[in-house]
């Protein structure tokens, strides 16, 4: 039996990656996630799985190393934060366009620009609405504990390979830096088999393989876009994940993910002490977003407050979900400031109950 250990969220990602049988990690240091690269370079991987770890010269290079490794059929991972993730957008678009699997972790800090190194949730749009160019989607998982940081690594890889699409774990500096107990899965061996689409050298028994996102003929490009669209529809139908907390008798709803969802759980107790029955809807997949499941709540609750450490990004999806059937508003601190449970209750009263 594996024991619980106490670990930082970033370190948990690194350890989980080794356990998941990751073949390669390519990354560039940036606060608040450099512990991932530091942990991996200290982990004596040659004595464990032989996982390849390389500090790239930039995030641009890192994501393209992922492209090469993924094209070779390997499980590849990178981690970064806002400014680095911005640099990776071209590569993410190319990987989606070449149908290559990979796992990218964004330990979000406040922006725009160089911003702050403190936690934020302001990269929701970037992750769920594109970020790079072209018609593509990024499967986005939002952990809310160190345990989920670890668990979502293997989940992320499973989804990435199942759908041949990049997957992002969208977390934040608070979850990356905080220590919590975590239990790891047993060591999984690195896969010796390569997927049929990987460039591993053309043997006489098969045709050559080329990996590309180029379609000069518009008819071909449209056919490919239609294929992608169907894939994204399938993901939307099958892969929505969420959690409901104290929703059974709720009159109001917090909608929150990651760090904000943890703070909202405290706010629920404060509000319920005052007789306000509020629950929490926590999307775990930010894309695909649980539109239907949030819509279903409109028959029960009178209003929803989207609580995010941003100027209001996920709130747009909550509004889309409820089709104006109930009141929806946003509350959130920014710039690396984390809202207090009291502030959230106050906002609920002012913006939803009183408003």
């Amino acid at each position, binding site marked *: 039996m594996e024991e619980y250990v106490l670990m930082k969220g970033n370190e948990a990602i690194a350890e989980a990656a080794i356990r998941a049988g990751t*073949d*390669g990690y*390519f990354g560039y240091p940036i606060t608040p996630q450099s512990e991932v690269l530091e942990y991996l370079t200290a982990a004596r991987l040659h004595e464990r799985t032989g996982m*390849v770890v*390389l500090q*790239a*010269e*930039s995030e*641009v*290079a*890192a994501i*393209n*190393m*992922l*492209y*090469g*490794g*993924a*094209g*070779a059929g*390997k499980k*590849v991972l990178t981690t970064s934060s806002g400014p680095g993730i911005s640099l990776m957008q*071209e*590569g993410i678009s*190319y990987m989606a366009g*070449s149908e290559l699997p990979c796992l990218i972790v964004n330990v979000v800090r406040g922006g725009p620009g160089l911003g702050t190194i403190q936690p934020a949730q302001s990269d929701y749009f970037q992750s769920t609405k594109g970020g790079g160019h072209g018609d593509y989607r990024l499967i986005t998982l939002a952990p809310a504990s160190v345990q989920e940081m670890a668990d979502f690594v293997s989940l992320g890889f499973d989804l990435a390979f199942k759908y041949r699409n990049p997957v992002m774990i969208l977390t934040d500096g608070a979850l990356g830096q905080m220590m919590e107990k975590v239990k790891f899965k047993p060591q999984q061996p690195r896969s010796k088999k390569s997927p049929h689409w990987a*460039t*591993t*050298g*053309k*043997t*006489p028994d098969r045709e*050559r*393989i*080329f*990996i*590309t*996102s*180029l379609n000069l003929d518009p008819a071909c490009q449209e056919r490919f876009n239609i294929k992608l669209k169907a894939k994204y529809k399938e993901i939307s139908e099958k892969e929505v994940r969420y959690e409901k907390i104290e929703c059974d008798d709720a009159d109001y709803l917090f909608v929150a993910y990651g760090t904000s969802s943890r703070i909202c759980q405290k706010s629920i107790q404060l509000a319920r002490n005052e007789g306000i029955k509020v629950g929490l809807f926590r999307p775990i997949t930010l894309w695909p977003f649980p539109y239907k499941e949030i819509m279903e709540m409109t028959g029960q609750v009178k209003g929803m407050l989207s609580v995010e450490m941003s100027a209001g990004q996920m709130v747009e999806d909550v509004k889309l979900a409820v089709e104006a059937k109930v009141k929806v508003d946003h509350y959130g601190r920014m710039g690396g400031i984390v809202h207090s449970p009291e502030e959230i209750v106050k906002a609920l009263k002012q913006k939803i109950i009183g408003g």
Partner: protein
Amino acid sequence: MAENAITTKELVKKENLVYQKTKLLTDDVMHYCPGCGHGTTHRLIAEIVEEMGIQSEIIGVAPVGCSVLMYNYMNFDMQEAAHGRAPAVATGIKRLLPEKYVFTYQGDGDLAAIGTGETIHACNRGENITMIFINNGIYGMTGGQMAPTTLIGMKSSTTPYGREVSLAGNPLNMTDLIVNLPGTYFVSRQSVHTPGNVRKAKKAIKKAFEYQSLNKGTCFVEVVSNCPAGWKMTPVESNKWLAENMLPFYPLGDLKVPEE
């Protein structure tokens, strides 16, 4: 007709066959302009892969540029990289498949402008890959704009009066730069504008592939090439212009050879 001349009937006989297209080139019709150095260099690479018997062990990385569709012509596995990122893509492949031969094929805009960082760092880390650098002094694919390698005074669609240093800076000699990096193992500059040069280029490129199995560092071959379309010349004129103008600035020869 000379006495020993061969008749057409005899010429087509199998036993009189002295040269044929390598099976490592597909039957796809190449889209290159007539006389373009890309086609010749492609053939050399395909021939070398055949001669070395490494079809099942090689993975190529195509650039963004005129040779973006290289994977259509090569009968082996390839990946198409984003503009300038081929050395990073090749790094990812080689690190995870260290027993394979991995190479990049890149133009001057790709390798020496947008991809400068990836080029220098792959060479500096001494990635065990082969890099083939087609320097035609211009952006062929996008219609003949100035490249980092465009010569002083040379006309392009964005230097219509000729490249002026005060405005556009100096041509970048990337090969001279990377030869100084300890990570490079074999560095050579060749051309394919005459049959003799084609033979020399083939020798250098072959070495650059053979040395890869030693795992001693990056093997880099620049091919000073032409772009008849972008230079607005006939193929013959372009080769003459290349010899008279490109070669003085990009002189041919081996720049770094391993000590035997």
